[in-house]
């Protein structure tokens, strides 16, 4: 069964909206700057990939819960990205045949909330509890669309939204629903997360030049850059499509576990390779059919080398020829949202015939030799693109998007 992509929306550190983000990617702009959300002056890492400040969408008839959701950055990012996807799809998504699958982590309590809990020795109020729930954005999506079909929330760290999109694809193929709203959202730039991830040694500390900090596959890379954002996609089956022109197809999904270590990737890239192979099999494609890989490419020593081995293993003889880039070099790492945002970027690459570059890739690490796209986009008419997402703990997800 063919599943079509009919709507896409995103907000990232590069800006608001699909076309705006695409222009920034084509210009190899960076969305990584000094942290503005709190005073980072004492922190070992003082930069991040923050989203632009956005006002709540003017949504009528808000319940107190929806108002509380829209008061949070996570809620606002969800609403903005979703609204763009709905506008693009331009179709009624209400009713029981429309499902929702969201990639999301639980919202972390902020410092003010923790302080209150500690001082008062009591729980936050119910509205705060609801807002912290991982499925809180699902209720917002239901409110904005009227969708009443099955809902679920995938929480697999950086793989969350990639797997959410994949699970939506499976539900559509099974005939459980006729349309799915899928995607992810994450907001991580806060003092506790910056403290925790910097203590793990996972973050770049290139404070003197933040725009050069995220440099996937480069020999001078020193860690990832925390980011935030949201991406949503509307998937529909052929029956619903009518005469509308789809953007493209979601043609394959694969996933795997590394079964290796919590913080490390296996040097041989075995889990990544298994995920890519299963996505190719699911799409009914041979490796040479893939015209572009949007890599997970976090800019950490281990991930990028492991992913390289995984690509070479899964793609065999064509592994060194397929063009590869990591748009995290410009957007930073959007964690639970990265799979959705990068699936949209991959779909745009297929639709527009240009492949986005890896910014800051000045000197390829000898352990990461692939057919990279450094610094500038390249023109290439491709039929299919692949996008990887690999999470802490070893969950891997791979999607294939295709031209109609």
């Amino acid at each position, binding site marked *: 069964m063919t599943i079509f992509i009919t709507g896409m929306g995103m907000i990232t550190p590069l800006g608001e909206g699909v076309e705006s983000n695409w222009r920034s990617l084509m210009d190899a702009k960076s969305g990584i700057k000094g942290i503005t959300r709190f*005073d*980072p*002056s*004492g*922190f*070992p890492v003082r930069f991040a990939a923050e989203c632009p400040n956005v006002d709540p969408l003017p949504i009528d008839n808000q319940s107190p819960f929806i108002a509380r959701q829209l008061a949070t950055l996570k809620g606002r990012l969800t609403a903005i990205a979703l609204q763009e996807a709905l506008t693009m799809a331009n179709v009624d998504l209400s009713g029981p045949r429309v499902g929702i699958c969201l990639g*999301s*982590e*639980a919202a*972390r*309590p902020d*410092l003010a909330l*923790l*302080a209150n*809990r*500690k*001082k008062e020795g*009591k*729980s936050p*109020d*119910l509205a705060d*509890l609801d807002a*912290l*729930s*991982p*499925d809180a954005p*699902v209720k917002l999506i239901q409110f904005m669309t009227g969708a009443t079909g099955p*809902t*679920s*929330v*995938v*929480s*697999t*760290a950086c793989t969350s939204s990639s*797997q959410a999109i994949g*699970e939506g694809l*499976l539900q559509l193929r*099974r005939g459980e629903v006729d349309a799915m709203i899928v995607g992810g959202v994450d907001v991580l730039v806060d*003092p*506790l*997360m910056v*403290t*925790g991830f910097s*203590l*793990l040694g996972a973050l770049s500390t290139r404070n003197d030049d933040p725009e050069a900090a995220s440099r996937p596959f480069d020999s001078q890379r020193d860690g990832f850059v925390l980011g935030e954002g949201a991406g949503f996609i509307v998937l529909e089956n052929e029956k619903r499509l009518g005469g509308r022109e789809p953007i493209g197809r979601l043609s394959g999904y694969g*996933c*795997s*576990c*590394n*079964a*290796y*270590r*919590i*913080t490390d990737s296996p040097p041989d890239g075995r889990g990544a390779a298994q995920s890519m192979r*299963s996505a190719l099999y699911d799409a009914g494609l041979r490796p040479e059919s893939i015209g572009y890989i949007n890599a997970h490419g976090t800019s950490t020593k281990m991930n990028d080398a492991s992913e390289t081995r995984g690509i070479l293993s899964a793609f065999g003889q064509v592994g060194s020829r397929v063009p590869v880039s990591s748009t995290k070099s410009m957007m930073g790492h959007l964690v639970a949202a990265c799979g959705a945002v990068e699936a949209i970027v991959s779909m745009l690459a297929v639709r527009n015939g240009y492949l986005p570059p890896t910014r800051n890739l000045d000197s390829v690490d000898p352990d990461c030799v692939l057919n990279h796209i450094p610094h500038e986009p390249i023109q290439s008419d491709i039929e299919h693109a692949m996008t990887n997402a690999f*999470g*802490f*703990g*070893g*969950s891997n997800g791979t999607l294939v998007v295709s031209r109609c």
Partner: protein
Amino acid sequence: MIGITGIGGISAGGEFSHFQSPLQLDLPVLAEYADLVDLPQSLAGVADKSGFKSHLKRRKAAKLFTPAARMGLSAAAMALGEAEDRQSIGLFVGVGREPPDEGEAEMALVCSERNGQLDPLALSGPGRDVYPPLLPLKTLPNMILAHISIHLDLMGCNGAWAGGPDAGVTALLAAYWAVCEGRCEVALAGASDSLIDLGQARDLLRQGITTAPGEGAVFMRLERISDNRKTPWEMEWTGEQGAVDSLSEEIGYCGATDALLHLAYVLSRGDTFCWRGLRFTKGLP
């Protein structure tokens, strides 16, 4: 036909596995729990979580395990049994809300106070010095899945679902379809959740859930079976919607695991059961 060929579980009622030792509910298992004495309701269903260490590849990995991860690994290992070719086995897990940070981060928060307020700058100095470096990873919702996959060598298709009591059900359905559709030959599906710490218990009371908090994990081994093979239970999608019940009055409210614990209990009694579109039928003797 999809068969359930193994069940492993752990809760305040004890461990149960492979239908040979069904969950015993004839003795009261809720008890006063010292951590909750300041609350109006101080009973809790506390499970013995010590068994997980026998399944660890490396003993020092234990420090990364939350209570839910400990129970999850034990239950998954019981359900899996002696499986061959583990690398293709799928793993589908329902998880609760990640535990609040302030337990282990308490010292860091204390050190980050200035004039009675938490101060980001203080967190970057004295607070950072005592902040547990593994805490951001340890409390991620998918760590139960990660620990099970690592210590039981499972590399197949997978997922971790969050979102309250439905999380375990969603995981079971995803596993059922993964086996039906041939994405894996064998899948482990289950959930693990622990709600007995003071913060979680307070949150439950605030939400109007007055049942005693509990904790538990259940995993089931699902696989495609041939017509002539014995299997304790068969399951198939019929779309029938049976009643979803709970054992929370007996063993405490177990969040993401609550519904699956009830399912395991019903299956261990030998009842045919329809639930959330799935029909469970007792298999060949």
